[in-house]
């Protein structure tokens, strides 16, 4: 049910019960209850040029009992691979945890967030909604903190380099009516190096809200390759927040495929806090049907000589909407910082609505910054050229689009995920005529 303002107080008891059933530490319950009080007064985050205040996003999850297990077999989304370093969650439950012994011995943790809250509470407490995303940033972050019902914790200790990618597969359970309140906390200790791949899909057809916050804390000198393929279903209305907090000389390379079927607002941010920190953000997105996807991508340069690059390419079909806001913000003191961004949108239909807004905010003199943005159609010369070689119009269009989206595809470290993104793109493009 939709929650009206000043009704959140009624959830206090339910949250206490939930927290106690999950055996959460006292501070976690307190964090939830403090957040609960703040929801009402806080505003929704502003996503430029996207109106979503009437979307059913602030819907409290079922807290009373354990969610029923997913009826659908997970094989559709998860190819069994005993070698994979993997966590699979269906709805609120963790159904697969595979972490090889040699990584456990090095102190690597890759587990359900509630398990982490019991086994390594101090590690979670240090970072959870403290450094990257703050509880009281807006209504959605406070709502998330109060009502988080499932999540993942990844910890890579100091100087540990992991060659195998960490893989997380999150299957939203929409066989039932329940909000999907997911938190992913990635803690990269000093000089650690690894890659992480996550995927979101939906099972079932119930109308649900999703509220997902992913925090990546990159300690000094750490290097994280983060990639994702988001494929939440058409009946899911999503608030997505991925945030990197980068300390001195840390690097995060993001490669995100925003391929959901339903309405989405997303905030993908990198806070370049440390000197010499570096974020490369690449995203591709396809909007189809009548869906609206509004994506804010922000890089904030606090540190000297910090580098933040944004490259996002999107395709719109049918009557769908896609908005890319690229925000580059260099704060006073960010001497020698570099903020570059490029947002491009291809519209494949007359009824599509696309927006690419570069926003540069610069409070320091000695910096480099630049932006490029365009919204256009498939180049008729390119189409003519491909067709003049016998390639059909549909196939030519697919080639041009795949090429257009190729920059992100090639940045994904796992071959299977790359293929998955390609397949998702093909699938989204193939049912374009409504």
């Amino acid at each position, binding site marked *: 049910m939709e929650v009206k303002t000043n009704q959140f107080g009624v959830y206090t008891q339910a949250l206490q019960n939930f927290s106690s059933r999950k055996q959460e530490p006292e501070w976690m319950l307190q964090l939830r209850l403090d957040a609960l009080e703040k929801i009402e007064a806080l505003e929704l985050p502003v996503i430029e040029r996207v109106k979503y205040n009437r979307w059913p996003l602030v819907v409290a999850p079922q807290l009373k009992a354990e969610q029923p297990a997913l009826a659908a077999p997970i094989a559709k989304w998860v190819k069994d691979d005993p070698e994979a370093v993997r966590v699979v969650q269906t709805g609120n439950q963790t159904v697969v945890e595979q972490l090889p012994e040699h990584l456990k011995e090095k102190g690597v943790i890759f587990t359900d967030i509630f398990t982490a809250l019991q086994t390594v509470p101090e590690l979670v407490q240090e970072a959870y909604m403290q450094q990257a995303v703050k509880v009281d940033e807006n209504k959605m972050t406070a709502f998330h903190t109060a009502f988080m019902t499932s999540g993942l914790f990844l910890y890579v200790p100091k100087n540990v380099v992991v060659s195998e990618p960490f893989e997380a597969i999150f299957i939203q359970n929409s066989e039932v009516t329940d909000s999907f309140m997911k938190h992913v906390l990635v803690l990269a200790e000093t000089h650690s190096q690894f890659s992480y791949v996550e995927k979101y899909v939906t099972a079932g057809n119930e109308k649900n809200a999703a509220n997902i916050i992913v925090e990546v804390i990159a300690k000094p000198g750490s290097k994280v390759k983060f990639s994702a393929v988001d494929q939440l279903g058409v009946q899911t209305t999503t608030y997505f927040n991925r945030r990197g907090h980068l300390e001195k000389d840390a690097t995060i390379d993001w490669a995100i495929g925003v391929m959901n079927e339903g309405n989405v607002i997303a905030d993908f941010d990198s806070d370049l806090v440390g000197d010499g920190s570096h974020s490369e953000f690449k995203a591709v997105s396809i909007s189809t049907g009548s869906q609206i996807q509004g994506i804010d991508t922000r890089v904030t340069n606090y540190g000297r000589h910090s580098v933040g690059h944004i490259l996002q390419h999107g395709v719109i079909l049918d009557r769908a909407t896609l908005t890319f806001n690229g925000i580059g913000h260099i704060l006073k003191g960010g001497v020698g910082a570099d903020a570059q961004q490029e947002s491009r949108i291809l519209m494949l239909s007359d009824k599509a609505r696309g927006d690419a807004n570069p926003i540069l905010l610069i409070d320091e003199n000695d910096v480099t910054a630049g932006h490029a943005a365009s919204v256009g159609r498939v180049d008729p010369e*390119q189409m003519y050229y491909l*067709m*003049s070689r016998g390639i059909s*119009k549909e*196939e030519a269009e697919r080639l041009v689009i795949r090429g257009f989206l*190729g920059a992100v595809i090639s940045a994904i470290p796992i071959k299977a995920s790359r293929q998955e993104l390609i397949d998702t793109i093909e699938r989204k493009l193939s049912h374009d005529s409504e």
Partner: protein
Amino acid sequence: MSVLEVKDLHVSIEGKEILKGVDLTMKTNEIHAIMGPNGTGKSTLAAAIMGHPSFEVTQGEVLLDGVNVLELAVDERARAGLFLAVQYPSEIAGVTNAEFMRAAINARREDDDKISVLKFIKKLDEKMSILDMPEEMAERYLNEGFSGGEKKRNEILQLLMIEPTFAILDEIDSGLDIDALQVVSKGVNAMRGEGFGALIITHYQRLLNYITPDVVHIMMDGRVVKTGGAELAKRLEEEGYKGLSEELGLQITIEE
């Protein structure tokens, strides 16, 4: 044997008539050359036959074995056997050369008869070696960042891979040095034979030293004004277009 006939072709671009009634017939196992001064409609002829969207055919027909290709979409014309190599092909980022050529080959084949990866690679290697192209060219994005010479070689590579019935080469020689010219010619000569005909559009006689034409057409002011053998190209080289237009009594301004 196949026949390509251009009959009384009139073509306009943005309302301005460029081709004013072109007639031309060619068969497989023949190489034809079209020569003529700049701005005379040679490239328009090539583009109109292939079906470039900017050109409007106002009159006439182009028959491929009796079928009017002007009624076909661009990709259908290509699958019917036509091929056009151009001087400035489009660049398509993110699509590799190999991927593109495989799509082009498979577009001509039934779903249950797609070319195998192995066969494709073998053929590609073979054709690339004819054109002295380094292997890495196959994995580069289609024409992206290619030099002028690389683009033209790549056009000829596509010709060799696709093996059309009729190829039109539109000023594929301009800007090429002698070495590149020889390589490109080697490619075209490799195609020569029973099942293939080519229409070579060129401004200069130079290319025809390497690819000997069976028939030479001279175009001026939107029409074919003279047709002859290989010796016609040589004569042009000596006398220039001016001499010829005077001989034919044409009132044409030549921009050389």
